[in-house]
């Protein structure tokens, strides 16, 4: 049976940066079945590699500095080790998957769903374009997770 890990991350005190975390929080109880686990986090943590390795598919939700504010994009994520020696503060989805493969011998398939951010300054409010994009961001995550679950039933 397919298991899916959803990780929404970002700093809710830095405006649009908190969008991913906000969406993950809203999806906490979306899938009562134990095959989907949702995590809302300030940032990606290296210990999430263990949970990733235990999953068949990981959905990362983030806000990006590049891209037009409020534009939702989706791309696959492949494992790729970090090129610098600091892993405590700045961890990418690619590095997290690389850690899962190196330590646990398994990197799941993964996708990153991103919303372009417009305002990353101090504050808890999302900019209007990002706030308006939240329903689409949420529905894209739902659709992706449901598609993976249905595929495993087929």
């Amino acid at each position, binding site marked *: 049976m397919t298991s899916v890990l959803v990780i929404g991350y970002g700093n809710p005190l830095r405006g649009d940066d908190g969008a991913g975390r906000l969406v993950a929080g809203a999806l906490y109880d979306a899938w009562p079945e134990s095959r989907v686990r949702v995590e809302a986090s300030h940032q990606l943590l290296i*210990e999430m590699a263990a949970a990733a390795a235990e999953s068949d598919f990981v959905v990362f939700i983030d806000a990006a500095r590049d891209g037009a504010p409020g534009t939702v994009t989706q791309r696959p994520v492949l494992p790729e080790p970090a090129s610098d*020696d*600091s*892993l*405590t503060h700045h961890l990418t989805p690619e590095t997290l998957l690389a*850690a899962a493969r190196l330590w646990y011998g398994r990197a799941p398939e993964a996708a990153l769903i991103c919303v372009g951010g417009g305002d990353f300054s101090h504050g808890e409010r999302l900019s209007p374009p990002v706030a308006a994009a939240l329903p689409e961001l949420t529905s894209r995550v739902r659709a992706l997770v449901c598609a993976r679950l249905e595929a495993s039933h087929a």
Partner: protein
Amino acid sequence: MSRIIEIDPVTRIEGHAKITLHLDDNEEVQDARLHITQFRGFEKFVEGRPFHEMPSLMARICGICPVSHLVASAKACDALMAVRVPETGVLLRKFMNLAQIVQSHALSFFHLSSPDLLLGLDSDPAKRNILGLAAVNPAVARDGIALRRFGQKAIELLGGRRVHPAWIVPGGVSSPLTAENRDALRASLPEAFAIAERTLEWFVPLMPRFVEEIRTLGQFPSHYMAMLDENGRWEHYAGKLAVVNPQGKIVREIESARYQDVIGEAVEDWSYLKFPYYKHLGYPDGLYRVGPLARLNAAKGFGTPKADHAFAEYRKMENGPVTSSFHQHYGRLVEILGALEEMQAILDDPRILDTRVRAEAGANASEGVGMSEAPRGTLIHHYKIDDRGLITWANLIIATGHNNLAMNKGILQAAKIYVKAGKLQEGMLNRVEAVIRSYDPCLSCSTHAAGAMPLHIQLVAPGGAVLDELRRGA
């Protein structure tokens, strides 16, 4: 012609710092300074806030050790309220503080320092990280992850969230422990014990490999400060603050509220981090150390079998206090074992499910001090309030601050041995950084910053010309 070498920023620590190495006319290192270049200002901007908000506000000081600040802050508020925290409230606070110590020590030992320990200080810096460990010992990396998850899970089960839980409150804790969560915590302990024990088993025999590091990385006699229980044993929540001299003798034991009898605070215009000192010796001679090294030099033991055995082996290294800062790595492993045994005892305590966990009161005193042992050392929160219960003054002494003089001295010692004026070399500079990393400094606490931390070193002539330069990372 004198000149200065800069290491900016220092990597694999929590926060931002740079080092300048000052050379004399003979190109020998004459002085070394650790500059903390970030400013936080918590002590000032809490003025005017209601005292009962302080634990939640103070937890925001740090994303690594918010629980430590919650504990010290809540204890200061207990003093302002003049209440006795219910026994079960104390036990639950202790349990969360211990979980914090375990997860933070795991981060320091496995994630931040084990690349130096297992890959070597002269290894390729691009691979000298926890991912690089996978090539030589993936089991160690997995153990680090598992132990940190254990501590975080424990905090999450108690506080409802992993980072910045608001469960520790003035007067106790906000909700009791459920039987279901107690059982879940109990079930997770055996794996944590197994990791702690097998890590000691592989790390201790490696010690001869580090003879040079032990000799050169912060190896000097000093005073030490740590909290002790009424029997002189390792303590992290209550008890008195003990001052230990370089011969290992306790020379002062004071109640937390009287910390200013023994600790003074100095400032320098080249760092945002204060320089606490032992008043009896003045500034800057009053250098003292806190944290694992200090706690294990001050304590007679843990009072629990596994940790006491590990402690006895640890203390055999020297006939007297253990003086090398490098041994803080070993000390953290001993403390993890002690913390796990105390966590086990707390979960086995029949009072642990009692629902009376919080004392309610308003302000009944104008001044309160809270002291606890954070992973990095003694943590002091001191507040004064007005008649409306609003903060009029706050003073925080953070573990990394206590160790400021010691870190500067350790850097100078290492630099004198390893840094010569010729071409700058990566491994040489990492040894200077390794001194700092042994203290596991949390600069976010002591003065957070996000982003990669590349290394940039400059050799600068008095006129400002860059004579030599070394970069790594982004």
